[in-house]
């Protein structure tokens, strides 16, 4: 501070500055908090995973109509398959070489298959595993996976993309992020995706909540 300055004028200047500071701080606080709330879906989602689940529950999205093939080598498209049978589908994403999280997803699907069989819900709920590793998952690999998982073809289907170029579009549409892991494996966010007949992705549910997924699918089935 200048030695020759007038203390009264200094105090006045400081007080004016203080109001400016309070205004600027309040503005920074309001803008900052608004940005944080906007980014987190009003404080509901702090991870990408919860955000995509919140967004899908609020506004269901149409899945892309990509060319696929099954273990028998039959070609079709994703929406055609989903439209077949007028069922609600519980969809998960796999690669057949997977030893880690897909194994637990596989056992979740096995349990769901048992429940669907036991309660005779074949006409209402279907299970669909989609491979995101089209380069590797040929019809033969899918067949081996189907046998290993003891899939009941009336309930549980496994398909792969016919064109590896569609992989990005598939993953983006469902909000899956795949990252390479050691030993040629992948790590990815895993969940149960509920898709209705016309190909609308309506809910994403944690794979620990298989029962909730089944009940939600039943409630959504026509």
């Amino acid at each position: 501070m200048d030695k020759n300055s007038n203390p009264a004028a200094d105090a006045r200047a400081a007080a004016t500055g203080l109001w400016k500071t309070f205004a600027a701080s309040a503005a920074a606080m309001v803008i900052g908090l608004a940005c944080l709330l906007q980014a987190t879906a009003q404080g509901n989602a702090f991870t990408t995973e919860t955000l995509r689940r919140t967004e899908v529950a609020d506004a269901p999205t149409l899945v892309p109509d990509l060319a696929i093939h099954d273990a028998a080598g039959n070609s079709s498209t994703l929406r055609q398959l989903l439209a077949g049978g007028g069922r609600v589908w519980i969809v998960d994403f796999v690669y057949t070489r997977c030893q880690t999280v897909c194994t637990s997803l596989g056992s979740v699907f096995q349990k769901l298959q048992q429940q669907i069989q036991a309660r005779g819900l074949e006409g209402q709920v279907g299970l669909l595993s989609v491979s995101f590793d089209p380069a590797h998952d040929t019809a033969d690999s899918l067949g081996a996976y189907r046998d290993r998982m003891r899939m009941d073809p009336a309930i549980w289907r496994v398909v792969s993309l016919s064109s590896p170029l569609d992989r990005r579009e598939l993953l983006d549409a469902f909000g899956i992020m795949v990252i390479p892991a050691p030993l040629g494996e992948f790590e990815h966010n895993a969940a149960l995706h509920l898709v209705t007949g016309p190909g609308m992705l309506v809910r994403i549910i944690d794979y620990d909540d298989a029962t909730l997924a089944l009940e939600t699918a039943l409630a959504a089935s026509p």
Partner: protein
Amino acid sequence: MSGGPWQRPSLWIGLTLCVLGSALSVPPWRSLIEQSMVWHMVVQMPMLVAGGWLLAGSGIKGLGMQRFADWNQYGLTGFIASQLIAAYWMLPLAIDRAVVLPQADALKLVSLLACGAMLKASFDRSPAVLQLFFVGYAVAMLSSAGVFLATTDRRLCNAYSLDSQWDAGSGVVALGIALGCAWAWRLFRDTRRARSPMLKPH
């Protein structure tokens, strides 16, 4: 300190940190932050904040934000703004977005450099008590977020493996501790200078 700003080491170290921090967002170095949460959260982000801090303190006209001094008495505005920026970049979804979207990554570079510069401007204008309030809050935020990242079994970032997240969590705790220590060191240094009769006669 003597000489023009171009003779000060803080300017050159600051510039180096800014360049290195920004380079981590550009291929081929980008793969480091894409594959490792530690490189992203514990190396790149603090590097940018430190770079912004040093550039703001380098004496280059305008970078010290003296023009905004009236709006930043006691450093209050700068503290609030930088705290909010830091909080945003600790959100797992913000970290994911910076990995996936180049626009979000560019926003990260700019906002964290600004965060560092604002912190420097605010530190220079604030009494130790106010610094303690904000530094204490930042240390608490970093260490609790770090412990959570390091101990949870949930993968919080879709872009990173659980192993990478655990390592980053430990790193964030270390950052929190380092920040607290750096602040305490600075306070001791300034107190000693202030008491020294050579510099400030009472």
